C-alpha cells in the first residue's frame, strides 16, 4: 500500500524535476543520454580492486546535481533503496578474498574489502547517473531520443503508454486493495482464495480500458504506426558538453588522479 504511494510520488517528483529550466535541462536530450552511457561504461570498466581511481568520477553527479538544482537528499534516499542488494552480494567479497591489499600505517585492508567498497561506490555512481538523467530529461524526451536512435516506434509508443497508465493503474489497484483491506480481517496481504478474483477483476477492467484507449486512438487516425514530433537539433554547446565530460572521463580512466595527488602530498609532507 505505502509503496504504491511512494512510487507514485517518486514518478511525479521526477517528472516535476524534469520540467525545470536550468543549464543542464536545456542540454539536448541525446547528448545527456550519450554522456550518461559513456559515464556508466567508464564506471563499470574499472577493475574490482580499483577504488581510489573511481573517486574523481563523483564530480560528474555532484556538478550536474548542483547545476540542475536537484534535491540531493531525495536522490540519495532513492539511491539507498538499491543498496541492500549490493551489500548482500558484495559482502561475500571480504569473506572469500582475504589477501591483504591495502597497507596503511595503522591498519590493513583485504582485497575483499576493497572490492566490496568498490562495488558500493560503483552502485552510488551508477544509480545517481540514472536518476540524474531522468530528473533532468523526463520520459518524453528520452522517448524522443530513442526515436532518434532508430528504436522501433511501436516500442516507444508502448513504453510511453506503460508510463502513462502506471499512474492510472497504480491508483486503481490501490483503491481495490484498500477496499479489500477494509473488509478483510487480515493484517497484511491478500489471502490465497481471493488472489484470482481480485487480480482477475482488475485485469479484466484493464483489458476493457485498453480497448477504450485503442478506440480513442483509432478515432484520431491511428493505424498502427506512431509518429513522434521532431526534436530540436544538437547545438555546438551540447557537443562541447559531451566532449568536456568525455575527455574528463577518459583522463580519469587512464590516470589515477587521487594516487598522483596523494603521492604529491605525502611526498611534500615527508
Amino acid at each position: 500500500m505505502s509503496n504504491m504511494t511512494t512510487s507514485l510520488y517518486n514518478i511525479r517528483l521526477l517528472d516535476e524535476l524534469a520540467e525545470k529550466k536550468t543549464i543542464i535541462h536545456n542540454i539536448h536530450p541525446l547528448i545527456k543520454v550519450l554522456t550518461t552511457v559513456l559515464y556508466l561504461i567508464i564506471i563499470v570498466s574499472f577493475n574490482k580492486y580499483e577504488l581510489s581511481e573511481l573517486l574523481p568520477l563523483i564530480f560528474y553527479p555532484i556538478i550536474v546535481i548542483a547545476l540542475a538544482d536537484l534535491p540531493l537528499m531525495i536522490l540519495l534516499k532513492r539511491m539507498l533503496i538499491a543498496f541492500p542488494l549490493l551489500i548482500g552480494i558484495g559482502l561475500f567479497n571480504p569473506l572469500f578474498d582475504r589477501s591483504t591489499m591495502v597497507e596503511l600505517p595503522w591498519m590493513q585492508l583485504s582485497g575483499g574489502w576493497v572490492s566490496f567498497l568498490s562495488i558500493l561506490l560503483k552502485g552510488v555512481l551508477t544509480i545517481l547517473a540514472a536518476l540524474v538523467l531522468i530528473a533532468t530529461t523526463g520520459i518524453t524526451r528520452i522517448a524522443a531520443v530513442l526515436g532518434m536512435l532508430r528504436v522501433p516506434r511501436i516500442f516507444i509508443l508502448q513504453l510511453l503508454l506503460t508510463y502513462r497508465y502506471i499512474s492510472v493503474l497504480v491508483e486503481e489497484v490501490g483503491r481495490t486493495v484498500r477496499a479489500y483491506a477494509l473488509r478483510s480481517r487480515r493484517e497484511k496481504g491478500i489471502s490465497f482464495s481471493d488472489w484470482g478474483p481480485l487480480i482477475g477483476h482488475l485485469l479484466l477492467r484493464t483489458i476493457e480500458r485498453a480497448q477504450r484507449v485503442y478506440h480513442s486512438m483509432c478515432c484520431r487516425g491511428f493505424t498502427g504506426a506512431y509518429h513522434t514530433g521532431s526534436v530540436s537539433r544538437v547545438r555546438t554547446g551540447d557537443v562541447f558538453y559531451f566532449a568536456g565530460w568525455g575527455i574528463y572521463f577518459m583522463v580519469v580512466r587512464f590516470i589515477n588522479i587521487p594516487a598522483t595527488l596523494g603521492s604529491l602530498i605525502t611526498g611534500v609532507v615527508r
Partner: protein
Amino acid sequence: MHMADALISPVVGGAMWAVTAGVAAYSVKKIGNDLDEQKIPLMGVAGAFVFAAQMINFAIPATGSSGHIGGGLLLAILLGPYAGFLAMASILTIQALFFADGGLLALGCNIFNLGFYPCFVAYPLVYRLITRRGYSQRRIFTGAMLAALIGLQFGSLSVVLETFFSGKSELPFGTFVMLMQPIHLAIGVVEGLVTAAVVGFVWQARPEIIKRTTSGETLGSISIKKVLAALAIAAMMTGGIFSWFASAHPDGLEWSMYNASGKEELAAPGGIYHTLAALQERLAFFPDYSLKNQQETNTFAVGTNESWPTVNAGTSLAGLVGGVMTLMLAVITGCCIYMFKRRHKTSGV
C-alpha cells in the same frame, strides 16, 4: 532479482544488451507482421497493470510471509510471447530509469532474465505444451505453475552467470547457485500460484481472452522448432561470449570444474588462453581481464594466500590521502556551484 550496474562488467552488460536488442527487434517485427494494432494499447496498459500489480502483497498460505509477482509469464499468457516480451522490457526500462532498480547497463541482462525466459522458454515450451489440448482449471494450474518455476530457475541461473562472468563479486559459482536457485524456487511458487489464480479466473469469466492469445496469433503456430532454434542461437552467442571469458578468466570456472571432476587440469590454460590473454592485453580497456589481474586470480584460485604483488604501504597511503582530497574537492565544487547560484538568484531579485 534485478542485476545492478555495479555488479556487471562492460562486456557482459554489452553482450546482454546486444542479445536483448536482437530479441526485441525480432519481437517488434513479429508484431508488425501480425497487423493486430489493437494489441499495441493493450501491451502498454497491461504493462502498467503488471507494474501496479507488482506492488500487491499476497499473503502466502501457512507461512505468514507475503510475496509479489514478476508478471512476465502473465504478460506472455495474456499477450503472447512477442508482445509480452516487449511489455516486460518497457516495465523494466521504467524501473531502471525511475526507481534505480537495476541500472541502465544492466537493463539488457534484466530484460533477458525476466522477459526472455518467461516469454520464450516457459510460455511456449511449458505452458503452451500443457494447455495445447484445451483448457481446464487443472491444466491452467499445472501449466502456469511449472512455467513460473522453470522460467524463474532459468532467470536466476542467468543472474548467477552474469554476476560470475562479470567478476566483480567473489561469490564462488557453486555457492551462488546454491543460494539463488532455492530462493527462486520459492519465488517461483508464488509467481505460479498468482498467475494460475488470475489466468484461471479470467478463463472462467472471459474465456475468449485467454483463448484469443493462443489461437489467433502466431502462437498457435509458434513452432517449437523455431523457439529451439532461437534458443540455440542465443545459447551459442552467450556460450561463445562466456567461453571467451572463461578462457580469459579461469578462476571461477576452474573452481567449479575442480569441484565437479576433482581434477584441475580440465581448465588448464592452453595455447588459446595465451593468445586470448595477449589479445586482451592489447584491448586492455576492460581491466578486469587484464593479465595482471588474471595472475592474481589464478593464484587465488589455486589457493595460495599470496598477497597482491602491488601491495605497498606507500602507494596505499597515497591512495587514501588522494582519495580523501578528491572527495573533499568534489564536495567543495558542489557547494560552490550552489552558493554561486543562490547569490546569482538573490542578486537578480
